[in-house]
């Protein structure tokens, strides 16, 4: 029996204000070579400066992924020649990654799975090469953009586990607010390593690295394809060659990029231009305090409220909605809040392609609406109507109800009069009720609500109706 071993290397672009080794703006620009300084250009005589914000961001990730921290760290040069690498070396952390030996907990088919994190280190992105018939052009906007590389331990055995790992990792990074983590745009890049070994053997098989995986679902697909490919080869008595392959999403196959020759010689050595960075316990604790509640923790909290899995997952996948839910969590019914957020609100946002902050809805308005719904003072249909107004125009829930005639009738005398009228007009239902058929009461309730244009207090109507029927 062959058992797959899978490890994942994830590169994440950090959205710090400045680049990692220069004070150049770290932002997208449609204009090429707009966000660059002489440092990013590898100008003679220029020296790297270290952006402290990047260290704090990386530290957040390390703490969220339960890593040990290298409190005394240095940077290293990784030397190789390539046109997109202006200095002829990349400044990275080889010997002293900021974090190491951590883990992440995820769920695969309802079962908890703990996946080890080997190391997390800080490095810089390269330029972008733009190839055309006229030749290759370089865009330095990306040169020096901060990256963290998160290397998992080879703890996964199939595509599904790898996908769960990538998904959970992505949601955690999103929650930390340190990156856009958009695989499609390259702010999160997954490379996977796949090898097969005989069951019971400690000796790992020869691995192939898969690059260019353009989405999280392709993480699973590419791995499953690769496992099948390697299994077929091994079963046919062939050997696996160490290769770098890329995933082709049109054929859903991995394709050979290059054979790995005698390992690359990057001539690593400590970067002499950046002195050692010492992280104190106080600094680490200060960052730890700023950590938000992470998705896996949120899930446990939400599950206790009886929230549906769908609402839970949707809200967690959307930090803005989640922030609202978190703010209202102890104030009003979280299940109703989550349902509104992930239902009508989210579909409105999607339709308009905007975010919550672009609407007229405010948290206090949503709080009133949930409270009103929770007290059953309005129907869910009315709730929908009010929500639409709040989203587009804003306003006060009470006033909208007044304007729209959605105020509740709770006055006994008025209600009794309405009930009497309905009972008298529906003698057959009264008969049914007396014969012990429950649906009669539902029908009568419906008639009363209709007659009151939905304004009657349903709880009160129910009590009064039963009382009056018994006397009838």
């Amino acid at each position, binding site marked *: 029996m062959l058992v797959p071993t899978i490890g994942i290397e994830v590169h994440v672009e950090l959205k710090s204000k400045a680049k990692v080794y220069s004070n150049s703006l770290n932002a997208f620009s449609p204009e090429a070579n707009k966000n660059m300084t002489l440092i990013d250009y590898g100008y003679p005589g220029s020296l790297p400066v270290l952006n402290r914000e990047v260290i704090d961001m990386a530290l957040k990730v390390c703490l969220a992924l339960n890593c040990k921290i290298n409190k005394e760290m240095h940077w290293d040069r990784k*030397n190789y020649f390539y046109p997109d690498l202006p200095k002829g070396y990349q400044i990275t952390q080889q010997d002293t990654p900021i974090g190491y030996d951590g883990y992440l907990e995820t769920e695969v088919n309802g079962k908890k799975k703990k996946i080890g994190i080997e190391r997390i280190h800080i490095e810089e992105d390269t330029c972008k090469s733009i190839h055309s018939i006229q030749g290759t052009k370089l865009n330095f906007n990306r040169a020096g953009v901060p990256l963290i590389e998160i290397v998992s331990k080879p703890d996964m055995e199939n595509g599904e586990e790898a996908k769960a790992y990538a998904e959970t990792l992505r949601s955690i990074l999103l929650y930390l607010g340190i990156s856009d983590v958009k695989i499609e745009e390259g702010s999160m890049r997954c490379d996977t390593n796949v090898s097969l070994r005989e069951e019971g053997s400690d000796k790992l098989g020869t691995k192939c690295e898969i690059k260019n995986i353009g989405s999280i679902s392709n993480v699973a697909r590419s791995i499953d394809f690769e496992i099948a490919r390697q299994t077929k080869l091994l079963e046919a008595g062939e050997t696996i060659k160490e290769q770098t392959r890329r995933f082709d999403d049109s054929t859903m196959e991995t394709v050979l990029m290059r054979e790995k020759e005698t390992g690359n010689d990057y*001539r690593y050595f400590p970067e002499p231009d950046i002195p050692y960075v010492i992280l104190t316990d106080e600094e680490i604790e200060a960052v730890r305090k700023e950590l938000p509640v992470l998705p896996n923790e949120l899930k446990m909290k939400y599950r206790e409220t009886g929230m549906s899995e769908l609402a839970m997952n949707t809200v967690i996948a959307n930090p803005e909605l989640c922030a609202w839910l978190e703010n209202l969590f102890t104030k009003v019914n979280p299940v109703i809040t989550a349902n509104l957020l992930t239902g009508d609100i989210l579909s409105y946002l999607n339709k308009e392609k905007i975010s919550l902050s672009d609407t007229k809805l405010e948290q206090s308005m949503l709080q009133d609406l949930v409270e009103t719904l929770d007290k059953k003072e309005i129907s869910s249909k009315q709730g929908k109507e009010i929500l639409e107004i709040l989203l587009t125009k804003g306003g006060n829930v009470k006033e909208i109800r007044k304007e729209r005639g959605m105020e509740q009738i709770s006055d006994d005398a008025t209600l009794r009069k309405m009930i009497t009228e309905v009972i008298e007009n529906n003698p057959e239902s009264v008969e049914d009720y007396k014969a012990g058929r429950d649906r009669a009461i539902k029908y009568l309730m419906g008639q009363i609500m209709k007659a009151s244009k939905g304004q009657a207090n349903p709880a009160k109507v129910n009590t009064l109706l039963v009382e009056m029927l018994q006397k009838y």
Partner: protein
Amino acid sequence: MTNYLDLSVIELHELLKKKEIKPIDLVEEAFARIEERNDNAFITLNKEEAIRLAKELEEKEIDNLLFGIPVAVKDNILTKDLRTTCASHMLDDFNPVVDATVVEKLKACHAIIIGKTNMDEFAMGSTGETSYFGPSKNPWNQDKVTGGSSSGSASAISSRSVAVALGTDTGGSIRQPASFCGLVGLKPTYGRVSRNGLVAFASSLDQIGPMTKNVSDNAILLSVISGRDERDLTSAHVEVPDYTKFLNQDIKGMKIAVPNYYMSDVIDEEVRSKVEEIIALLKDHGAIVDYVDVHHMEHAISLYQIIALGEASSNLARFDGIRYGHLTERYDNIEDLYKKTRSEGFGREVKRRIMIGSYVLSGDNANIYYKKALKVRKALANSFAHVFENYDLIIGPTNTNVAYDLGTKKDDALKSFYDDILTIPVNMAGLPGMSLPVGFNHEHLPIGMHIIGNYFEEGKIYTLASFIEQQLKLDLKPKEGKTC
């Protein structure tokens, strides 16, 4: 021709203040002398701009000692719109868009940059002979080397073509030529002077420093160029004193160590006996001088070849012809572009050092050589630190000998490293070190004495150096046309 540039910075400052001379007089004298000497001390002259500036300064108030003073800058230090070649074909058409931090500081003082001085290519060499533009001449004797790599700065000061100059020192490149040309050269503590804008050779060793006719000029220049710079993370957060305050102080009770290694048989006898004379002089004036052992000094050359060349192989990788510098004319692909550009752009010594440096960092060698070298380097620094627990300064000869004939070591790569056996340990430890002229040999070639201080204690070096200078009162101006 006038001889104002024989004077010290303070004397020139007085004349300028009294309006007895104008900056333009100094600038004109500088260019006249450079032309007359024809020592190949400069790669690029800044004539038009210097004259323009000198005239402009006539309208300004003289507010500091370097105001209107002609300076020379080594050609591996960036000067905006003034060609900076590193004495290499690779950069022979490179016009920087910025100034190095030290140049900004000189300009802020209204010092006048006369030109960019010749040097060994990318500061790799100790004779000036690896320059793409040919060697500079030693004003003491045209057949002798100036030393290097700051060959042009040494030559220009020695010939009194400028008042003061900047050099750079990675393994002795300020001190050794200062010693060969009879001038005062100081390599500051690592981190004292910003390296921003210095084209890197070996980042953990490189320092920019002053090369001057006398100790006072040296202290004045160091006070100006020192200080923390946010653009160089290795520059130190250590306050900069006015170094001239340390001049003319008593040396009584000063504790001085002489490493036995510095006085061994390897050192030329005349050089050794000159240093011994100074030791006697210092003792006579109340200094306490002891011979001590500084361990691991004997590994200096190996450390240099591993650490300096390892770093150099990486620092010089950026010269690929793509963004700046020499680009080969015809190439088939990117690999071919790199090979041809770098083969044509770099000289033999630079290529040799890149190869050695790449080798020591390659694969397992990084552990066998580089990481081990870092440990020995640390041990050497500790050994120095141990001496400084009990002593104020360390002295000895700067070099094993005086200036030798041009061409002597051209074809012996290893031999030229051996010039630096006494200077490299100081760079490895990151300490400040000065070469001070203390006399001449039988051929009337200058002999330099090495004064090494503890971290950021350049002040003590100046105290001792100014004392010796005043005692000796040497005539350090080479005699016209003299070739002994």
